[in-house]
């Protein structure tokens, strides 16, 4: 692995995708508006819930906003990097252009995961960070170095898990070709990441922490944020993230052995 080479290639990726995205300036504006509206909508939904009950799964409104903030950041990251790139795998497999990717003297997973970027997701990330800052104020959290590093570690782990989930699902297209909307299923499952895990029934809680670890993605970082997380949960998240990253890599290499190209 040549780090210098990869960073140089990545700046090129950034430059080209920015250039092509800025062709549609109005689009970016509309996307920004969509991001703002969708945050307002989620908060509206939360207020409906809290209108009828003071706590949901043991979380108060101010605390539930933290989950919302973290979800918004992660959703922004999904929209900026994962969504534009990983839905492209389907196209590559269907049209046989994955050949060109594999022939390049660069790691195929790197190329496929980071080629594109949609700048409008940045606003969502920023919105999420603003909401989190507001939450630290209303929840009277004092920021210190330890706290920030722990938050950063858990959020990075969440990003890794999220990336691996997306990458897993997209990789299966090598066998099934036509699963354009397998990612839509994942998207709808991820939707529940907006709410605290404790607000669901026991069976769903098990499902969302063992099979699809959405629980780790938003709830654990939020607990760290509130300072109520136990150390074993954070350690578990780090382990889950590492396992997911490692297996997604292995799975990609394994899947490539079955890739038989199209129309060639």
């Amino acid at each position, binding site marked *: 692995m040549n780090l210098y080479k990869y960073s140089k290639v990545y700046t090129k990726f950034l430059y080209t995708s920015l250039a092509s995205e800025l062709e*549609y300036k*109005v*689009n970016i504006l*509309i*996307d920004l*508006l*969509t991001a703002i*509206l*969708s945050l307002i*909508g*989620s908060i*509206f*939904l939360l*207020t*409906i*819930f809290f*209108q*009828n*009950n003071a706590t*949901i*799964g043991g979380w108060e409104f101010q605390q539930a906003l933290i989950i919302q903030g973290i979800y918004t950041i992660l959703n922004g990251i999904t929209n900026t990097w994962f969504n534009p790139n990983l839905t492209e795998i389907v196209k590559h497999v269907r049209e046989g252009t994955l050949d060109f990717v594999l022939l390049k003297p660069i790691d195929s997973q790197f190329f496929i995961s980071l080629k594109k970027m949609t700048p409008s997701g940045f606003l969502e990330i920023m919105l999420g960070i603003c909401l989190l800052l507001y939450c630290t104020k209303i929840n009277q959290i004092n920021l210190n170095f330890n706290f920030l590093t722990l938050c950063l570690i858990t959020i990075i782990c969440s990003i890794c898990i999220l990336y691996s989930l997306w990458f897993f699902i997209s990789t299966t297209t090598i066998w*099934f070709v*036509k*699963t*354009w*909307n*397998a990612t*839509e*299923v994942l*998207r*709808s499952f991820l*939707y*529940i990441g907006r*709410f605290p895990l404790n*607000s*669901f*029934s026991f069976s*769903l809680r098990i499902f969302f922490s063992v099979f699809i670890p959405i629980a780790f993605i938003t709830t654990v970082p939020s607990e760290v944020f509130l300072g109520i997380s136990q150390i074993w949960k954070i350690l578990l998240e780090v382990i889950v993230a590492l396992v997911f990253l490692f297996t997604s890599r292995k799975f990609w290499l394994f899947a490539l052995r079955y890739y038989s190209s199209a129309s060639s």
Partner: protein
Amino acid sequence: MISNLISPKFFTLLKVQYSNMLEYRVEIALWAISGIIPFFMLNIWTNNDLNESLNISDIMLSRYFLCAFFVRQFSVVWVVFSFEEDSLMGKVSPYLIQPLNPFFRYFAQHLAEQITRFPFALIIAFFFFLVNPESIWIPNFGILFLGTISTFLSFLIQFLIQSIVACLCFWTEKASSIERLLFIPTLFLSGLLAPVVSFPENVKSWIYLTPFPYLIDFPANLLSGNATNISIGFSMQILWIILLFPVFKKIWSEGTKKYTAMGS
């Protein structure tokens, strides 16, 4: 234009599209699964006793969300995405020469997809009843009939709105971002995530004038046997269709004049 609907041309289109859709069974099954968000919402509602202050029992609420799932399944519209792709690829040109408005083709595509989707939706409902056996009920024939009609009208409203947005492709090339923007209020205000009766009073005062509650909340209430005003619901649905149809005709005739046959 309406007379085309009962002509043999349309039935042929429907048949062709149906066999086309049968080819993509797995894809449609995945689409059906990705619509299960109402069930997660139901879980939050009942698990936190949020419905107590609304005077809706758990059973009625579970029926509401099941019906919301069904209504959503049969009113999903994606015409703007198909049209955008076709217009960017220049496929619209041959359609324009044919003696049939191209939107009939998309309309038939949607109907065919709904027929294909029906068994999958039934399977999901079967599993729902396995988990919640106490909510099993059989609506009487009249209600089922009215519910089907109101679902179809809801589909028509959404189809018209999206077709109007799709026609903007003639001007902006990428109209799908506008659709994503419009989807946000549809998601939060239509009653898919929370029944409209639970909304705060200041929202309820104006929401019934917008098309949103008639997309999912009204048909779902009707089907599930929850309280709703049937005559007002139907008249508002028909009113919106009458309002939207001339807009679509106008924008279509303006747009086709502007069409420049990209990519061909």
